[in-house]
């Protein structure tokens, strides 16, 4: 994944980050469309608005580093390197999907790019990520593991159990909390006492909070934490302040009872990760609008093609139903 290693300049790297964020944005737009057209089975939790977190974090990782993801996991999956077409195929329950259609949106996994899977149990992957870090340490592989989760998930006790172990055993794991202010239809002020990072610090874990809409800041901070972890200096906790543009899931349309249109508007207008990066790069004269537009157009083409591939792909054979229960 991380193009950074392959590109010659910083510009190219940030343009790649821009492309990745654009791809996620476009992907989610199409998912929403598919849902609205009743072409998608079940539900999906869109990542739109949070792109800088997934991309900033994953760009600080190697392809063989691990991530564990969440119900809101499309962004993590793409940012870590998964292909658009097979992701769409999974969302539509098709044989060509990353999980042969057996997992769907909430369980996409792509071990080839280090993604150990989305999880439909809020907080359910905290142990898995920590165990992957233990495994990396025991095998001396030099890998790190990243655990993505939301502000709602920090209410799950499992987090404190595994942070304790990670701290005691100096495991190369980084807990990335995407604080988008809401768990489902409830604002975090109703469910979160105290400060999030204080909870990690209480275990002696290095913790930081960053603006999660600034992909450069996310990546740079993350790079520091990853380097520490790889050097054997133990776990870290990164809180990224962010926002989801859409509802909790695609069907959550009327949401003024829990948050205002103004608030949504403010985030979209004044804290959009794509806009922010574009403005910075243009202001620094590192690129121009045309280049960025070209990226957007290319991404749109790729995403559209991936979606069409998935729509036309066949469903799994019924005999698949009782395969893969056991190895």
């Amino acid at each position, binding site marked *: 994944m991380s193009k950074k290693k392959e590109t010659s300049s910083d510009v190219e790297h940030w343009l790649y980050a821009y492309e990745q964020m654009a791809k996620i944005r476009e992907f989610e737009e199409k998912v929403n469309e598919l849902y609205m057209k009743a072409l998608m089975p079940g539900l999906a939790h869109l990542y739109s608005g949070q792109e800088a977190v997934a991309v900033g974090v994953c760009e600080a990782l190697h392809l063989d580093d691990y991530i564990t993801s969440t119900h809101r996991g499309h962004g993590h999956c793409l940012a870590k390197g998964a292909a658009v077409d097979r992701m769409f195929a999974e969302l539509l329950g098709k044989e060509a999907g990353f999980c042969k259609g057996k997992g769907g949106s909430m369980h996409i996994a792509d071990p080839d790019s280090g993604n150990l899977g989305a999880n439909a149990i809020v907080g359910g992957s905290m142990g898995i990520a920590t165990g992957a870090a233990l495994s990396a340490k025991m095998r001396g592989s030099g890998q790190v593991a990243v655990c993505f989760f939301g502000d709602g998930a920090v209410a799950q006790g499992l987090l404190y159990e595994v942070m304790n172990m990670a701290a005691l055993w100096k495991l190369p794991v980084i807990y990335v909390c995407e604080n988008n202010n809401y768990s489902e239809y409830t604002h975090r002020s109703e469910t979160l006492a105290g400060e999030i990072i204080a909870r990690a610090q209480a275990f002696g874990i290095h913790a930081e909070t960053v603006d999660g809409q600034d992909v450069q800041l996310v990546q740079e901070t993350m790079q520091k934490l990853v380097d520490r972890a790889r050097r054997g200096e133990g776990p870290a906790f990164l809180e990224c302040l962010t926002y989801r543009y859409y509802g909790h899931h695609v069907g959550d349309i009327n949401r003024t009872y*829990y948050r205002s249109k103004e608030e949504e508007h403010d985030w979209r207008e004044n804290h959009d990760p794509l806009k922010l990066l574009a403005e910075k790069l243009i202001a620094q004269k590192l690129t121009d609008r045309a280049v960025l537009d070209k990226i957007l157009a290319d991404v749109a083409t790729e995403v559209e093609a991936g979606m069409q591939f998935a729509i036309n792909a066949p469903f799994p054979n019924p005999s698949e139903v009782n395969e893969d229960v056991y190895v």
Partner: protein
Amino acid sequence: MSEREITFSEAIREALAEELRRDPRVFIIGEDVAEAGTPFKVLSGLVDEFGKERIIDSPISEPGFTGVGVGAAMTGMRPVVDIMFGDFLTLSMDQIVNQAAKVHYMSGGKLKAPIVFRTTMGATRRSAAQHSQSLQAWVSHVPGLKVVMPSTPYDAKGLLKTAIRDENPVVFIEDKLMYKMKGIVPAEEYLIPFGVADVKRKGDDITLVATSSMVQVALGAAEKLKEIGISAEVIDPRTTWPLDKQAMIDSAKKTSRVIVIDEGYEQYGVTAELASVIADGAFYYLDAPVKRMGAMNVPIPFSPVLEDLTVPTEETVFQMAKSLCQRS
């Protein structure tokens, strides 16, 4: 009795509202239960009448808020704990099983935990392996718990009111697929006792014992069976514990053929208990082995074409019944 048609959701909501009104000790705790009324909207509006002090939005802490409910129940309250998906029971099992279910016995009868754990079950919503399970077998296995699985709006309302008034911990399991189903529910108050099976349809040739939404599947199959001249009796135990063994056995004795149907995994599932109770109790009357139909023994797949294969349907029940009655 005045008759009205309301949905399963409305029946649940009415039961809760009536009990909240009747007894100030009753309260609800769970994720997004207040303004959101849960993702299934089953509780919509309750917070307006009863306020946020009695309809309590909790953090995403299943073990925690379940335990808080148990402690409140032990000290004079009547909590209704909302566990959004039955799959999340996995997180709360210690509080339900080791604490709530046992505290009365362990204390020699001095403490008690009158609490209702409302949760859901049921596949075919394309929600995949962690949001579709039907784990009634687990809780039915535990002495000290009562387990309710309503199959109609009428039963849902009457049984839920009974559950809230029960002095013991009750696990109340709703099939998400039934929330929009309509049925006749009297406007007058009524309660339905636990441990009393209901004959949902009378018949002579074969008995279909079914739980929750599988009762609807069985009724559909019975309708089809009628067309080929097979008269099926449909028995709904309504509570898997206490279990009305006699009703099942009596029907089996009459018809001599039985299929038991439940949406939990078939292996070591509810169907095993029902089948073995009937095979024992009606041993000398059975003309064929008791047949079990549960969910396929696989994690529930996402893809619709696969998921639909995993649950008993009117058609598969019909076929099984037909072959059991040796008609072709």
